[in-house]
């Protein structure tokens, strides 16, 4: 922790905690209207819901190095990155509620959050966001800016053709591009070892002549360091990187996932090493922040998130006919 500023640590904690609280709340809200019988299409938040509880370090400890000008593309599990990237939380929540005031006027939903103001996007097709980030990196290079583009993906996405084509392009053109692989061990029910022919995706960097990093045990500090190096290298024109972080998926693939494929003990074990609690403990130990500071921060976070939900709940639904708009501009 020596080399991390207090400011950065506090930022990382804040983002992780915001995401966590946002999602814990979402977990509850999502069940509204879906009880006693779960029906995916019912309630104020219908459709699939992929939460990222446990995976916060990947997002926060990378995005702390980014500015508004840097691009982030994310996946079907996008909230932790969206929050770290500074996506408008009210509009994001409203979008998830399908409201007119949402980022996409209710047209996108939780898997399709677009906030061009902070250069954030995500999508529901595994692997598809990688070339989008490559294109942003290409644009940055063309403009001669030192902005970078980061694609966040799951370890399952590293077996898609899009991954390979994108990495080759980024390396070939020496673009300011980074792919962060959140290795949560699972692609829905398929264990990484049943999907990926190598134990670490970091090694795949060799196939493109670029740098590969691996972060163990969901460690926000290690992730911070590795990301710092990768981002700095990208900004200096030293080319793309692959960063793999071994992370934890606390919840099912989506809400409602019966999770019959994994051992009941897996999650409780992971939770013992919760990265937010770990960081907090470290910060307390190193006197980066006091118990009081955390209380204050948490209160702020809860308030911010609660307000976003309030905004969403109180917003209007779109008119049915609005569906016909925005196909073309």
């Amino acid at each position, binding site marked *: 922790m020596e080399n991390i500023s207090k400011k950065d640590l506090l930022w990382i904690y804040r983002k992780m905690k915001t995401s966590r609280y946002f999602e814990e709340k979402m977990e509850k809200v999502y069940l509204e209207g879906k009880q006693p019988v779960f029906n995916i299409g019912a309630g104020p938040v219908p459709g699939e819901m992929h939460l990222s509880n446990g995976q916060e370090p990947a997002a926060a400890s990378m995005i702390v190095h980014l500015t508004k000008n840097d691009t982030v593309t994310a996946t079907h599990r996008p909230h932790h990155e969206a929050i770290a990237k500074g996506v408008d939380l009210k509009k994001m929540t409203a979008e998830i509620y399908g409201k007119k005031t949402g980022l996409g006027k209710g047209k*996108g939903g939780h898997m399709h959050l677009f906030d061009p103001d902070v250069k954030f996007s995500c999508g529901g097709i595994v692997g598809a966001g990688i070339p989008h980030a490559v294109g942003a990196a290409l644009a940055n290079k063309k403009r001669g800016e030192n902005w970078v583009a980061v694609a966040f993906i799951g370890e*399952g996405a590293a077996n898609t053709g899009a991954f390979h084509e994108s990495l080759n392009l980024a390396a070939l053109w020496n673009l300011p591009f980074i792919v962060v692989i959140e290795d949560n061990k699972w*692609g829905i029910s398929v264990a990484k070892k049943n999907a990926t022919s190598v134990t670490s995706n970091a090694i795949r960097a060799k196939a493109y002549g670029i740098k590969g990093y691996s972060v163990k045990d969901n460690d926000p500090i290690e992730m911070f360091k590795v990301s710092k190096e990768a981002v700095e290298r990208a900004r200096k024109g030293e080319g793309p990187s692959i960063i793999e972080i071994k992370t934890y998926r606390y919840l099912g693939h989506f809400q409602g996932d019966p999770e019959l494929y994994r051992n009941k003990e897996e999650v409780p074990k992971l939770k013992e090493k919760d990265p937010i609690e770990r960081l907090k403990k470290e910060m307390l130990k190193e006197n980066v922040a006091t118990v009081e500071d955390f209380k204050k921060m948490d209160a702020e976070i809860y308030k911010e998130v609660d307000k976003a939900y309030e905004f969403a709940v109180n917003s209007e639904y779109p008119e049915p006919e609005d569906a016909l708009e925005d196909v073309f501009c």
Partner: protein
Amino acid sequence: MKTIKEKTKKLTGSKAMIQALEQEMNRDDSIFVMGEDVGKYGGIFGSTTGLFDKFGGERVMDTPISETGFIGAAVGAAAEGFRPIVELMFVDFHGVVMDQIYNHIAKIHYMSGGAVKLPIVLMTAVGGGYSDAAQHSQTLYASFGHLPGLKVVAPTFPHDIKGMLISAIRDDNPVIFMFHKTLQGLGWMDQIDASLGDVPVNAYTVPLNKANVVRKGKDITIVGVQMMTVEALKAAEELAKKGIEAEVIDLRSIKPIDKETILKSVAKTHHLLVVDEDYLSYGITAEISAIVASEGFGDLNAPIGRLAIQDVPIPYSRVMEKFVIPDSKSIIDSVLKLITV
């Protein structure tokens, strides 16, 4: 189809699928299933539940998220004499593997002058209505129907789901087998009556190229498929109260289309409405309208009605999604417009 009375059991669409797969896999060792989460999970939309435990990982194979890889692999395995069944989890994902599907699976038999047979079944879940938004709610019937070399089916009721899946498996040609999520009768989705039905216990086949008149009527022909058939039937009940007797045809086969059944019906009703959960342009409403306008023109007494998704992506928010997907209400409105014409 058998006419003798068979032992039947009430099954959901999902259970009908699984039964078809199980019976056929027991019958023929060369059949195996590949796909994402078809193993322990049993298929995200319940297409393979329990089969992994019964047949093991060699015959029910989970794959990486590599659709071009594993669906392309079906070609090689089929050419070697296997009968692979591959699952594309959502039809919406076809874009990452369409080359293998339409340039290879569909064309190799032809390009080889008949020398290579590819008995591949591609199962894929279609349909919206539960707020899964633009990349997870499509049917894309016509995207497959447009391309030569594929038989494309989309059964509605459990009886046809089982029978057509067995036909698909036994067919030596590649078959795209589309199953509608809402018609699977899954515990975690909308519960609708149509997703439960009598299914013969033994294996049987339903032809891959025949539409089915699911309701007789004399005033207008309504052609639908999957959920649109269900909605059309609902609409027909309402219309009957107004004295309009609609004949409802469950298309079942997207390619080839059973022209005869449709033309025969129109010859009787002189009115046609086609309803589709796919996009309007170049969709089912287009193809069926064209068939009738060219081959049954003289039988038509009124303009053909088309009801489909108005060329917009499927929106997430419930109010908007409900607005774009046709339902019994919009069907009734359309019929009334056509009939009063």
